[in-house]
Structure formats: C-alpha cells, structure tokens
C-alpha cells in the first residue's frame, strides 16, 4: 500500500494542506487537523517496492499517471490528493520541508502584480490574463553544510603620490599578506531536480529557513512533489562552485586598506559535513503570450518571481532614448559649466 490519501474522518472527502493555517484541511466540511499530531504513514511502511509498479487511486481506483520523479500529485480522474509513499521512503525521505505560505489565489495575484511592474514588458503582457497553468510544486533540494579551511598568500601595495619641488613622487609600499580563515556555510541549497532550470532555482533564493519543518507527508497533500534526480554526492561540485564566490568575497573583505592586492596562492579545503534532503515550495506559472510559452517560477514563501519575460522593442527603445537624452543634456551641462560652449 504505497498510495497515501488523507480522508476526512468526518465526511470522507480528500483533505489537502492549507497554506494559510498550515494545517491539513477538508475543503468540504472545513475540518482542520494539526499536521504535527497526525501519525505519518510513511513511518509504518515497510521497505520500498518496485519502481515499475502501477499506482491506483484509493478513491476511484483509476490508474495514477505520473512521471517517475513525482512523489505527490492529484488523481487526474477524481481530483483527490495522492502521495506515493514508496517514492518518499527510505533514502528518499526528505529530512525537512518548507510548506507553502502562498495560496494559489495569492500566487496569481502576486504574479499579476509582478507583470504590471515590468518596465520593459509589452503592455499586452502586463495585463497577465493568459495564465495557462499555476502549479504548486515541492522541488527537491540538497542543503549542504560545508566547512572550509582557507589559506591565502598574497602581495599588496599602498601607493602615495605627492609633489615636492619640480617632481611628482610615487611612493609604493609593498606588503606580504597571509590569512588563515575558517569559513563554515550552513544549508547551502542546490536544486536536485533534473526538470528544474538551475539558474531559475538559484534566483528564487533565499528561502526563509525559519519556516523549515521536519518533513511530514500531509504537507504535500494537494500539491505536486518531485523526488531528487541527483544525490548529494553528484551535486557536491555544484555546491562547491556556488560557495567559491562567497569565499572569494570573504577573503577580499579581510584584506582592506590597500591600493592593490594580488593573491599568489589560494588554498581552499572544503569539507562536506552534511547534506539534508529538503523540499521547497515553488509555484510554476505557465504563461501563453503571442503563441509562445513562457515559464516563471515563484518562491512559495516569499512570492519572489523569476523567469525571462518577453521584452517590448518599443519600450526598450523608448528607455534607451530617454536615458540617452537625459545623459546627453547632463554632459552638455557639465561641459557648459566647465566653460565650454553650449552648442
């Protein structure tokens, strides 16, 4: 029995997670259950079964059609929220989850507002009336704890220029610098789903970690959830890559007061202490504009929207013309104030 559904004990309808109250709620009779108190059926489940098996909806008996990565969805026949237990058990059990805080209606509203604020988007796009689909997805992430031992050697200079008599002197002081730094990063997120665009997911950050909860399946009820496509070892290089620029910025912040700094040797020893499997809430928006499909993603907690909108050539040209005109007048004014003619 790997298909999990939450039936309302009062009326028998399927219950779903309610982002407003953070409780499992029944859309029919309004019953609300605290998720912390619900025994998680995953814990009682035996070992995972075969990948190739068929899932049947416990409400209507229809076959549930899913991608192999999907671990929660709704039955395409009766609409019941179903969770595929064996895709969430064993190694596939998420450690933590950030539940949705933005409901579908709020997400639509927030997306429309974002569209209206686009300075370069065509006006037809700004009305945002062509939303084809709004899907709430729990996207799998790995949260890395990365300990870094950093050692840097470098050469720095301080330059002072002064004049004395008929000569201009350039005095350069040379320094040998050394820094030993311990730099630990917690919960660095890397998206682990093959389907999701990495760049898009990176821009969705930050996810508010104060809303991290211990994983319980009822959080998924009513949403789509994916399981990870890559394990934590496979994605470690991406995580190291991501923190590399953080480390470089940190090193630079410890070397200040110099005219120039060049590093002769930079040793970064990264130790992956831990990697937690997490599910983060993302609203995926499918948008149809002038016969082209656009995909946007919205952070299910903060409402931050990312994704490439169409650009209006006319608006880009207008902005360019405006900025060009203003800068030209400014340059003219500067030249005029310095004593140059106005024309």
């Amino acid at each position, binding site marked *: 029995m790997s298909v999990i559904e939450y039936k309302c004990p009062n009326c028998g309808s399927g219950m779903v997670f309610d982002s407003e109250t953070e409780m499992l709620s029944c859309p029919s009779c309004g019953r609300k259950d605290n998720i912390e108190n619900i025994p998680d059926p995953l814990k009682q489940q035996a070992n995972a079964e075969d990948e190739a098996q068929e899932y049947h909806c416990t409400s209507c008996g229809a076959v549930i059609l899913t991608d192999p990565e999907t671990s929660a969805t709704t039955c395409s026949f009766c609409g019941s929220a179903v969770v595929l237990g064996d895709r969430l058990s064993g190694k596939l059990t998420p450690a933590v989850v950030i539940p949705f805080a933005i409901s579908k209606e709020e997400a639509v509203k927030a997306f429309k507002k974002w569209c209206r604020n686009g300075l370069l988007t065509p006006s037809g796009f700004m009305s945002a009336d062509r939303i084809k689909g709004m899907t709430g997805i729990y996207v799998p992430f790995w949260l890395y704890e990365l300990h870094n031992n950093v050692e840097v050697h470098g050469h720095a200079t301080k330059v002072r220029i002064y*004049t004395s008599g008929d000569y201009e002197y350039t005095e350069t002081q040379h320094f040998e*610098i050394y820094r030993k730094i311990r730099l630990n*990063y917690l919960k660095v997120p890397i998206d682990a789903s093959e389907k999701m665009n990495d760049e898009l997911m990176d*821009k969705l950050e930050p996810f508010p970690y104060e809303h991290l909860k211990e994983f319980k399946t009822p959080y998924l009820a009513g949403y789509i959830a994916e399981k990870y496509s890559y394990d934590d070892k496979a994605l470690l290089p991406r995580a190291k890559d991501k923190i590399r620029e953080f*480390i470089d910025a940190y090193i630079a912040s410890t070397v200040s007061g110099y005219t120039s700094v060049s590093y002769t040797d930079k040793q970064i020893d990264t130790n992956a202490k831990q990697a937690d499997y997490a599910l983060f809430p993302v609203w995926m928006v499918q948008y149809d504009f002038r016969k082209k499909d656009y995909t946007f993603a919205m952070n299910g907690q903060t409402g931050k929207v990312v994704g490439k909108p169409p*650009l209006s050539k006319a608006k880009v040209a207008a*902005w360019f013309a405006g900025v060009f005109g203003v800068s030209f007048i400014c340059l003219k004014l500067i030249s005029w104030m310095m*004593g140059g003619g106005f024309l």
Partner: protein
Amino acid sequence: MNKRRATWSLLAMMLCLTVMLIGPLQTAKAAGDQPLIYDEAGLLSPEDKEELTIMAKEYGAKRDTDIIIYTSNNPEGQDVQIMTEDFYDEKAPGYDHPLGNAVILTLDFNHRDIYLAGFYKAKEYLDDQRLDKIRNKITPDLSDGEYRLAFEKYIKTVYKYMGYKPGVNPDNILFNIWFQLGGAAVIGIIVVAIMTSRSGGRVTVSGRTYEDKSTSGVLEHQDAYIRTTTTRRKIEKNTSSGSGGGGGTTSGGHSHSGSRGSF
C-alpha cells in the same frame, strides 16, 4: 491722470524703440566695409578671397571679433611680430570700432614665419596657449601650400575656441560633441542592458546568507611590510594664460596675446 499715464507709456515705448533700432544699427555698420583678407603675397584666387571673406565675416560676427588674414612677401625683412603689430596700428581693425577686437594671422614669406595675435576680446579668449594650438593645427597645411584649407581651419577654430570661457582647455574631450553623444549612448546602452538582465529576476543572496557566524572567522592574520619603492617624474610646467610668451604691445600701445612659429 490718464493723460499723464499715456505720456509715460509713450516715452517708454520710444525708449524701447530707440534701443532696438540703434543696437543692431551699430553692429551692422561695423562688419561692413573694412576688408578682412590682406593677401599681399597673392596666394588666393579672387573667388577664394571672396568666399573666405564671407566666411570670416559670418564667424567673426558671432564672436564680435574681426578675423583677419595678412600675407606678405616682406621685402623689408621685418620681424613677423613687428609686422603684425604695425599692421594693427595702421589698419586699425576691430569689430565694432577701430582698434577693437581682432585676431590676426600673419604669414611672412620672406622668413616663412607665422604669427598669430589676439587683441582685446580676442586677447582674453585666445591666450597664448590657444593661439599655439591654432598655429599647430594649421602649420602642416601651410607647409603643404594648402592655403585656402589652412585659412578655413583658422577661421573655424578661432570661432570655436572663442566659444569657451577663457582659461579652460578648448580641446577638453568633454567639450567634444561626438564624445558627448557617444558617452550618452554608452550610458543608455548600459542602463537598458541592466534593466533587461534584471527583468528575469536576479540573485539576491550572498555569502552572508548561509555563513555560520559563530564558527567562521579569521584565524591568522599577517601583513608584513617588505619595502618601499619610489619613482619620480618631472612636472611639466604649464605657463598660465595672460602676458608673457608670445604676446606683446604694439607701438600704438595695444597689448595682445601671440604665438609665433615657422612653416
């Protein structure tokens, strides 16, 4: 009461009219008759001379200055600066009155010397440095015998330089219209490029977002001074504007700026 007011209005109107009529009349008279091109060396065809005169009049009028060209074979072998000064005292050019604002380009074909002098407003706006710049601009063309081209450059550059306040470098890149247009275009492109790249959302996290502040920090820190190196460079002396250098005073007592050279 009414009558008195009418009288005052009439008086005011007449005053206005007088000013409006006399002002332009005075300036109109000025440019008219006196020649601006004294081509004693005979370098120019009559058409060239006529066209250059029109040009010098037109540009000179905008700067209230007579722009004069004086060429001579100088059989007496006089010094080119003395020639220019005597020329000014004798011909008494000047935009709105004799011995007034004038800039003179003198070519001495005996010594192949060139001299530029600015009087009154032209002295103020065309100091020695600016005259040096003009001379450097036209000397190559004069050496090549491209007299008409050199004279056109001279007239236009005098006009251009007199549009800048005295004391500033007229060749400052900021004053260049192409630089201004180009700069504005670059700013426009940068702003639009930033807007375009931000339209799809941008990364708003930094290292601080995920840094564990309680365990992170600098463990060892060394900044060892090694040595000091010093280089020195001689400062180019910029002789400031005004007297000195190329300028002087005519025997008639008119002081001027100046620049001399050969071609």
